[in-house]
């Protein structure tokens, strides 16, 4: 029988390892290892390692692992839905703000024109004219109702909705408070609307106090 060379031994050993065969039971390798001390050590080392691997017991895991995964998925889904709701609310608020700004500007112009009498009048201005695009009382009431409903939608206690978003973007909450404050300011700018100013400074108004403290 031809004696295997060391290079052939290594090649065959590698092939058996690649095929996940038991190297210690291969007669050709055993034969060569008996006559070659170096290859014998290599063979016994590999055999020892593979034996150790086979003896590692299979670890057990928590029985409810699958249910925990599904619970986590549900929580993530809920957070995602809340985030979408908040983004939609912010977008709607931004759109309404943009739409209302020109109306607020009209009111400011209307007040200015009346305070100064439309400039220096040498003669009696005569009966007061209603400027074009000015608010009627009905408009004012409608807008006040709208602002009131928006305030309710966007009031301070709803800010807890921002908690999931806060974890992702810490600037969201101050932004929401700014919108809140803007609504209050706009509401006060409505014609015929009177609201006593709070005694405390505006900086501490409507939730800013809690965010600052």
């Amino acid at each position, binding site marked *: 029988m031809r004696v295997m060379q060391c290079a052939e031994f290594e090649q065959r050993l590698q092939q058996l390892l690649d095929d996940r065969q038991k190297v210690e039971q291969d007669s050709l390798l055993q034969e060569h290892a008996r006559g070659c001390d170096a290859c014998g050590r290599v063979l016994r080392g590999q055999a020892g390692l593979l034996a150790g691997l086979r003896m*590692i017991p299979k670890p057990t895991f928590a029985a409810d692992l699958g249910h925990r995964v599904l619970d*986590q998925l549900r929580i993530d889904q809920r957070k995602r839905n809340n985030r979408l709701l908040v983004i939609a609310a912010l977008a709607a608020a931004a759109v309404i703000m943009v739409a209302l700004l020109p109306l607020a500007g009209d009111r400011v112009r209307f007040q200015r024109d009346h305070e100064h009498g439309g400039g220096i009048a040498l003669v009696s201005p005569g009966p007061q004219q209603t400027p074009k695009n000015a608010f009627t009382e009905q408009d004012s009431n409608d807008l006040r109702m709208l602002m009131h409903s928006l305030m309710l939608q966007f009031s301070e206690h709803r800010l807890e909705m921002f908690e999931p978003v806060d974890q992702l973007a810490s600037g969201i909450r101050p932004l929401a408070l700014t919108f809140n404050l803007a609504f209050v300011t706009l509401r006060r700018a409505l014609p015929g609307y009177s609201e006593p100013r709070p005694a405390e400074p505006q900086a501490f108004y409507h939730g800013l106090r809690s965010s600052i403290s």
Partner: protein
Amino acid sequence: MLALVERFQGQVFGLCYRMLGNREDAEDIVQETFVRVLKNLAKWDHERDFEPWLFAIAGNRCRTALATRRRRPTVQAFIEPVPDHRPDAAPAKHLAEEVQLGLEQLRSDYRQAFVLFHQHELSYEQIADTMSRPLGTVKTWIHRARLELIRFLQQREVIEDASYAVRRV
């Protein structure tokens, strides 16, 4: 979804446990892995095997956890003993613990490749796919992992240097 998790949770847990050496950490990573897999199931390329994709995500999560653990040196990794109820289990348990300890000493990429090959019986091609590495690199990693483990067992005198036989304790 539950069926998919239950079908693969044992394999994923096995990999994570071997990578991290700690049951709680492994369970957390298994949970993270499946949440990520289920959220991104639509991104899975149906022409590829599912297991390499799953193991790739689990392996990445494990390596991230190991990197985090390295940045926090106060949290010590340890080998958690696994109860073995087989008769005459003491020598086997000792050797198994030493092999597990040796696995902990390996580079994380060597360890992942070695565990996937020897314990999960993935082919070299699947491991290369899982780890996004060339086939030759994966073969080299597994070969080096074997040599390093044998050297570790010799140094710990679990495999006797003179005869390389498995020492009975």
